[in-house]
């Protein structure tokens, strides 16, 4: 696995730059990742990212958009506004979680 430096810390990432080690992430890292993909973090963004982090800890997998909207309480339309075009990927990227497994 390659490593890269984000916000002054060395972190482990996959080929596409998604962080792969849960505990290497903190909110400053998340902010830096968001800047890197042009997302300006607001409280609403953080609400989503914190849900993703907690849910991953409980479930062991990056939640799908449907799960963020039903269990996390932020509807899909809103997710597309907060993380334009590709919310599933962008949310996971900022939250330092594996890219959501496209299903099989």
């Amino acid at each position, binding site marked *: 696995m390659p490593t890269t430096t984000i916000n002054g810390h060395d972190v482990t990432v996959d080929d596409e730059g998604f962080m792969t080690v849960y505990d290497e992430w903190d909110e400053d890292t998340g902010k830096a990742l968001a800047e890197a993909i042009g997302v300006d973090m607001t409280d609403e963004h953080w609400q989503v990212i914190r849900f993703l982090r907690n849910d991953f800890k409980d*479930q062991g997998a990056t939640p*799908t*958009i*449907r*799960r963020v909207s*039903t*269990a996390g309480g932020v509807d*899909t*339309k809103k*997710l*597309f506004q907060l993380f*334009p*075009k*590709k919310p599933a990927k962008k949310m996971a990227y900022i939250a330092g979680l594996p890219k959501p*497994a*496209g*299903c*099989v």
Partner: protein
Amino acid sequence: MKKLLILGGGTAGTIAANKLRRKLSATDWEITVVDADDNHRYQPGYLFLPFGTYKPSQITKSRRKNLTKDVPLVYGEIDRVEADENAVLLTDGRRLDYDVLIIASGVTPRPDQTDGMTGDQWGDSVHEFYTYEGSVALAKKLETWPGGRLVINIVEMPIKCPVAPLEFAFLADSFFKDKGMRDKVEMTYVTPLPGAFTKPIAAQAFGNTLEEKGIAVEPDFMLMEVDNEKKALVSYDEREVPFDLLVTIPLNMGADYVARSGLGNEINLVPVDKFTQQAKAHANIFALGDANDIPASKAGSVAHFEIDIFVENFLEYIQGKEMTHRFDGHANCFIETGGKKAMLIDFNYDWEPLPGKYPVAGIGPMSLLKQTHLNHIGKLAFRWMYWNMLIPGRPMGLPPLMSTSGKRTDLVTAEK
């Protein structure tokens, strides 16, 4: 006498019942299956009904007759599972107790979950082929459809048989060619995935086939609503795809009783251990086939291989031993590509579909990820195998775990 209760008499439930009945002593274990009706459908046949290749009678048999006669079949609608009391309640008030429960009630298409899908155009210019009724209705529609914009759409993954929408596109191309009207049909494949399929090498192969057939792809399309007035699909990022005939694969969800019982995730799938299919929340509940949340295809072939492994584990489980067998997510699927040809893919949790030969390395006779007539013959022969080998739980001579032998593993580095 211990009680094993199986909810669902479809592919997974029937195979599990038939296989376990042979392994478990009749004096120690009673095995009962519950289902709402007696119609066991050969679901891969839904793909062929719209094009008149199969008659409805060829894809339906009696659930009762597919089950070995010493397994009772109880007809009834499930109200809920009382997991803490080891009991299942039926809607008519009957109560069935169990020692071990298998949930095998699959998934069903839910057009009601997408705004506008079941609106004015439903059954007119908006169709689906994932149910018996839908497939029959689409056959009728296609008989007289004069052509125009045909849009094939997947609402959201996971769906049953993830290659079926592609096959539908390929077969539709052939169907219109045979009718001499292919030039009157503009076809678009609208998918939430970034390409034609979930896994990169197969996605490339299928993408090429779509291109060869002149079928446009609209990727990364998250459907927000079906606009009935405009007759268009509208995505969350405000793209619109107009249609004259929409063939959609609605959101697939597990049974509602799973949700009512507090046993499901957000789409009513039962969270299980991906190697043993044991429910994460209850040690005496297993979920087999489409009803569980393992990261594998929702397909009969997965149920088949999964249950081969499950039976071994189950025999250990009931003796209080640790379950030592691990299902690897093995699936194989034929993909009809039209013109009496088909492709074949064989894959698991760790290995994406790769080119090569199957089942014997270097020899085949089947070719993986390649369009051949023999694969098409295999696909058609499979209906006989399904009713006569798979469902009775007879050994098919195919190893349940995937083998990398005969596959071009040099094309990827395994994900593990």
